[in-house]
């Protein structure tokens, strides 16, 4: 912002001391001085204009506000106190969940022994004599293979126990 802009603004707003004003006005030509007078007239017109602005449809204006605030009165917003209670309840739940996790999860994720992964076939007997069943242990692969002969497929609803 230039010094001229700063001084001009203060001049129009009557913010200068008498000495400053005289000095500033001496630096202006007649046209610029006229401008100052004209601006003051324009300012008065603007203030007058602002005073003449009316609210359109004032009844409608009030009714809209009233409708909204009465709706709020009928369904009051949650009070801050209630929000605090909810916040405390939430925090309590979180703390309880954290505690449960600390107690239970280490058990759930404890290192499992090799026995947990070894499958053992106890019996390889087939009820249908046309079907033969063989079991092979594969301890290196922690599992067992059941080989069945005499059937093309095992139905989806057949339980292999």
């Amino acid at each position, binding site marked *: 912002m230039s010094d001229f*802009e700063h001084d001009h603004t203060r001049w129009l707003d009557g913010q200068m001391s008498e000495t400053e004003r005289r000095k500033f006005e001496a630096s202006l030509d007649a046209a610029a001085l*006229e401008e100052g007078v004209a601006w003051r007239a324009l300012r008065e017109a603007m203030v007058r204009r602002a005073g003449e602005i009316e609210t359109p449809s004032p009844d409608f204006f009030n009714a809209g506000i009233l409708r*909204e605030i009465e709706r709020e009165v009928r369904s009051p917003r949650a009070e801050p106190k209630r929000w605090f209670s909810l916040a405390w309840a939430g925090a309590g739940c979180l703390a309880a969940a954290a505690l449960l996790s600390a107690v239970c999860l280490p058990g759930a994720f404890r290192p499992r022994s090799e026995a947990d992964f070894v499958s053992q076939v106890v019996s390889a007997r087939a009820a249908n004599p046309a079907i033969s069943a063989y079991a092979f242990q594969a301890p290196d692969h922690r599992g067992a293979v059941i080989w069945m002969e005499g059937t093309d497929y095992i139905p989806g609803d057949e339980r292999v126990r």
Partner: protein
Amino acid sequence: MDEEEPTDEELVRRSKLGNTHAFDELVTRHRRRIFALVYQMLGSADEAMDVAQEVFIRAWQSLEGFDGRHAFSTWLHRIATNRAIDICRMRARRPQGEWSETPDGIDAASRTTPSTPERPGDSIDRAEVQRRIDAALATLSPDHRAVLVLREIEDLSYEEIAERVGCSHGTVMSRLFHARRKMQLELRDFYERL
């Protein structure tokens, strides 16, 4: 029986107790000024209507926080100014590429005195003055218009404007300077005859 009009303070007290009729009376008392302020800052009657209503609804919602240290009208005025400025800012964030801090084509030292001599007997119709002032205000950027309205019409100090608009004292003065220049240019054909 001639019943005395309740003061704003009394109406606020009743409103705080949930009396919507008391608040309705406050709306009636202050709606014209609030609407005029918002209208001049936003430049659109439809938008001003919505925003002015919103101002009163916000005031109702915040009544508990009104401590009565200032007049109700001052408090309400502040809510309205802040809301209008928020809207101006939202508009300014929209890419319009139309306005800048220093309007193009206006030399800071330019003279805006009418080039055509005043004709004797020229008189300006009041409605015409209103129309021209509104149209000239509408040509200003939202920032310039807000500062000009707050200074010229609401008579706020530079410091108060800076605080409300959220800019420096120097920026307020610069915006005022350019807003006035723009208004003078827009109204150059007739403003000396006002």
